[in-house]
């Protein structure tokens, strides 16, 4: 077997390059970054309007509402993860590139997290304060969202890869991803609730961390396999 071309760029260089490319693309279209954030803020605003502004209600439901809103906002952004690449043919080019596809998929996931997950984490304290969440609990909320959005970007990319190019993709994507995202939601929201009740919450953080590690090690491969299948 022929050795690989010595001029072949390294795997690491390609990971950096695709992450950089997607970040640049997101910056050229800031709407893609801002829309999920507005959606997140909007859902968090709607909830008190629906159930009433009582202080006790807000403190009780705050962790859950913030988490569900973050989950839905991430879901909203996932649809476009591979869509434009599919439409302009650059996904095909990625599939025939000499770099390992899981690495390229990972690069796209990293960029997706940096442009949706991370901003959500960063604005979450603002909304948490309107839910009268104490400062130390906000810290826990941010930590769980940090780990949780990583999990959601990773899991979501599997679903996005499976549905890329399908006509009824959007609704189907939710149907595929939400069951997978359920443990993340459950762990995340309960951990924040525990912290709010000043109970021990470390287990939840560890479990979320473990989930993130598991997703990090499996999702790139599953996404790569799904992309190859979807583009046949």
């Amino acid at each position, binding site marked *: 077997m022929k050795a690989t071309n010595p001029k072949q760029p390294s795997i690491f260089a390609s990971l950096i390059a695709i992450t950089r490319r997607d970040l640049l693309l997101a910056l050229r279209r800031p709407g893609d970054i801002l829309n999920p954030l507005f959606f997140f803020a909007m859902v968090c605003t709607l909830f008190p309007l629906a159930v009433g502004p009582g202080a006790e209600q807000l403190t009780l439901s705050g962790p859950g509402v913030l988490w569900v809103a973050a989950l839905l906002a991430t879901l909203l952004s996932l649809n476009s993860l591979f869509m434009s690449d599919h439409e302009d043919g650059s996904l095909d080019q990625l599939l025939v590139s000499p770099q390992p596809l899981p690495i390229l998929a990972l690069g796209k996931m990293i960029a997706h997290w940096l442009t949706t997950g991370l901003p959500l984490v960063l604005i979450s304290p603002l909304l948490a304060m309107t839910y009268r969440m104490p400062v130390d609990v906000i810290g826990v909320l941010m930590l769980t969202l940090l780990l949780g959005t990583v999990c959601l970007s990773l899991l979501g990319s599997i679903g996005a890869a499976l549905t890329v190019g399908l006509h009824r993709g959007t609704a189907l994507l939710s149907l595929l991803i939400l069951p997978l995202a359920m443990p993340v939601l459950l762990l995340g929201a309960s951990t924040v609730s525990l912290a709010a009740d000043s109970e021990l919450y470390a287990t939840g953080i560890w479990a979320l961390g473990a989930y993130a590690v598991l997703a990090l090690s499996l999702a790139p491969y599953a996404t790569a396999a799904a992309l190859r*299948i979807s583009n046949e």
Partner: protein
Amino acid sequence: MWKFFHHLTSPPHFYRLAATIIPWLAFPGLVLIAYGSYAGLFVAPEDYQQGDAYRIIYVHVPAAYVSIMAYVLMAVGGGCGLIWRLKLAHAVGAAAAPLGAAFTFLALATGSIWGRPMWGTWWEWGDPRLMSELIMLFLYFGYMALRAAIDETAKADKASAVLALVGVVNVVIVHYSVVWWNSLHQGPTLLKKGGPGMDADMLYPLLAMILGFTLVFGALLARRIRTEVLYRERRTRWVRELILAPGGGR
């Protein structure tokens, strides 16, 4: 050995083989279910805590068992299909999904009915098994929806196989995360099902029901696979010959 295996998984051979084994699965299965239903309803003693209400386990436990088995079968079928490119394995997944969803629904419905006297509510969010079953129902729906959305059979096979494999990991995680969650909320005391602590008069009908459900599921599955195989191989010569033969399609 490999030759035998290859022969077994060739569609025309499986099609004929399935026709032979379906009665051998269906009849013992139905007999076992008949015995189990009778013994479960009339012979088994009342539970000292739950009275007659517990008797729903004779449907609930087997249905739940079969629903999980169907899911695992779907995932294993998908895995075999992806790795060894066995067409029959994908057909197994396609055939198992609606059956699995039906049994999952049955397990959920009976669980809910059982919950009414036990927990005083039709639905208990904190029960890990109920939640795992519910998520599994959603996964079945997702699997079938994905299949339906992709026009090309070969592509639908592979995509849904990936989903089924991811889903298996998920079901396990859902179960343990709800167990953890439940331990925080101190929900209703978990009912210990089955187990060697059961009275023999209660246990044997349950075992008969589980085995009976499994056999009937096997018969239904084999029937569905036959249809699936016939549809997928509709352009091949053996199907044409089969249909055109006298008494065609048997």
